[in-house]
């Protein structure tokens, strides 16, 4: 069992937890992920590490409530325990040698982008961060990004905060103005990452994307997290759990990844509703 040390609700659907897991805290690097189960018989879900504290052996996760399991996890309070917590899994984001980087985060993906921005800032790289949300209420981690970015652009879909528009608007503007980034690192919804890649393409700027497909074991056994990459005109199958989760954005078949991500959409909707109902009953 793994103890929840601290809980913070970042916005109506996004929750941050610090969980005691010394072995994971000791090893995790930006870009790696963990897998957890809330309770016995629970589903295994992968979540990217949002930060670590080696001094007290805790790991930070930030997640959006999207289905039954994340709903259940959001009900857990500090001092309570979750059943399983394993990691760090996957390959850490390659940051060596990067001097000037643009971080593009969308929604809860910003939680994963943040430790990468922090690490780059700590290495002395010049960090431009573009973070996007649907509206002001969903904004997270503004202060944290401000602290580690040389330039910060905040975008909202409805213009209720920061600038109006999506993240590709300032990205395109900067690239057109002649900004030369060593790398664009983007983390967020698949559709956003797809358009970040399309925006960067005419300028030939390398793009790293962080993939979060359906996964069970996370250790290279089940093959559920497979992705199709187009490498030099050839289709190649890669596994996000052991080959990723970071990939060259130009090689990813986003349409296929989006389709596969919806495999259990119906199931998730029912599970989410069931979790809500269960909670309502407990409250009554």
């Amino acid at each position, binding site marked *: 069992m793994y103890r929840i040390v601290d809980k913070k609700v970042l916005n109506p659907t996004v929750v941050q937890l610090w969980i005691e897991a010394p072995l994971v805290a000791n090893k995790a690097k930006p870009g790696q992920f963990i897998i957890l189960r809330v309770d016995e018989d629970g*589903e*295994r879900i992968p979540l990217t590490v949002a930060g670590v504290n080696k001094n007290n052996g805790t790991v930070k996760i930030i997640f959006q409530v999207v289905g039954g399991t994340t709903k259940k996890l959001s009900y857990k309070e500090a001092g309570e325990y979750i059943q399983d*917590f*394993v*990691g760090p899994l996957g390959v850490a984001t390659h940051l060596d040698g990067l001097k000037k980087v643009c971080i593009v985060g969308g929604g809860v993906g910003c939680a994963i982008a943040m430790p990468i921005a922090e690490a780059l800032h700590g290495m002395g790289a010049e960090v431009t961060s573009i973070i996007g949300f649907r509206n002001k209420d969903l904004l997270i981690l503004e202060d944290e990004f401000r602290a580690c970015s040389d330039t910060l652009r905040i975008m909202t879909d409805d213009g209720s905060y920061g600038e109006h528009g999506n993240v590709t608007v300032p990205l395109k503007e900067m690239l057109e103005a002649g900004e030369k980034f060593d790398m664009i690192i983007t983390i967020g919804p698949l559709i956003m990452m797809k358009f970040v890649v399309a925006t960067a393409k005419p300028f030939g700027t390398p793009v790293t994307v962080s993939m979060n497909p359906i996964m*069970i074991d996370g*250790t290279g056994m089940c*093959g559920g997290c497979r992705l199709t990459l187009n490498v030099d005109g050839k289709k190649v199958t890669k596994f996000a759990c052991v080959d990723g989760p970071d990939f060259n954005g130009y090689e990813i078949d986003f349409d296929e990844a989006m389709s596969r991500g919806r495999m259990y959409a119906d199931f*998730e909707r029912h599970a989410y509703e069931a979790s809500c109902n269960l909670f309502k009953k407990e409250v009554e």
Partner: protein
Amino acid sequence: MAKANMSLKRNVMPTQDAKVRAHNFDEVALGYSEEQAIDEAMRCLNCKNMPCVAGCPVKIHIPEFITKIKEGDFEGAYQIITRSSSLPAVCGRVCPQETQCEAKCVRGIKGESVGIGRLERFVADWHNTFCTEQPVRPESNGHRVAVVGSGPSGLTCAGDLAKKGYEVTVYEALHTAGGVLVYGIPEFRLPKKIVAKEVDTLKKLGVKIETNVVIGKTLTVDELFEMGYEAVFIGSGAGLPNFMGIPGESLKGVYSANEFLTRSNLMKSYLENPETPIMKGGKVAVVGGGNVAMDAARNALRLGAEKVYIVYRRSMEELPARREEVEHAEEEGIEFRLLCNPTEILGYNNPEDPRDPKNGFVTGMTCVKMELGEPDEKGRRRPVVIPNSEFTIDVDTVIMSIGTSPNPLIKSTTEGLEVNRWGGIVVNEDGLTSRNSVYAGGDAVTGAATVISAMGAGKVAAKAIDEALGK
């Protein structure tokens, strides 16, 4: 003692009726009664040269334990088996005895061999039901050994060392101990409570089991030595599933057998209201002809599939699964499409509406018919495509069961660990790898094989570790 039983036929294994069992996850084979076990034991001739023992990868003293059964001393029989095997209730169920001990049985020359596997199972189940005596933890010899993976090879290695007084810790990446015994082999063939019982026995012998630790990630092999372990055994098991490389393998509804079985077994998505989803019902094609393919097919049937096909490119004669599994599958109504090879998986696509929720789900599988051509260098007749023989099977789910490659995690994080070109860890006859004091065995070395061969490898390594450290 009663007279030898010279019947040419062995005692039939009682099983659940095929029509009933096709819709439940309870165990198919029910096991011998005491009378049946004694009657079957009486068929053993107690041969002096013990050919059956030579056929056993862990060298169980077979005639000796069968003699105890004849005497009605079932606990005595159990004690003889556990001298050689750490997991008798498991082996009695999943070993391919017909190609091992039973294949060498003299009674098999004329008639059927003694049902050695069935007797082993009987003895283990009898012990688990009636024996209340707890295993005694031996006195520690002060040596510490780490085992990576709690599958059959790891559990065997850990058990053998613990019995000799070693302090053993088993590191398991998943949340439950048992490896393939819990994520892969279905409940109806190997109930999970049997695996849990065997794991429990090891714990009582002093073996520590740490779940949720991925060696190669959470801790490295080098760190295990820094922590004070004097030897490490790697039994990390099979790895990434193979796919055919045909179009459509990424459609929704295409699973690897590993994923399908893991969802159903380990994650319990066979339950009424599971937390982990799985596609249930509809028509299912399983591609491949091994034991894992049989497990996947029969599991799909029990999840409510209206039709399940096994699609295999050679004929029944070459089909590698155990006969018993094939017979059970046939009885349950699984249809074998032999000499048949998939060329494409077809998916739904509504050109009018890209947001149609049905888009991207499997609707069928195109196959070609095959015939057997000239034998290859191994003597197996090569399947050859029959021109213009293309046809489509109407299916909603496709399960690829065409093998795995060894787990990539440890080799990529352990310097100096030699692997072969298939990714299998290279070991010598003692299970020793290219690294000092690092041993390996099971699927991590051989690629997909059997539970008992993995146990054999765990046993060999345990002996070698004892010889190296015990001096």
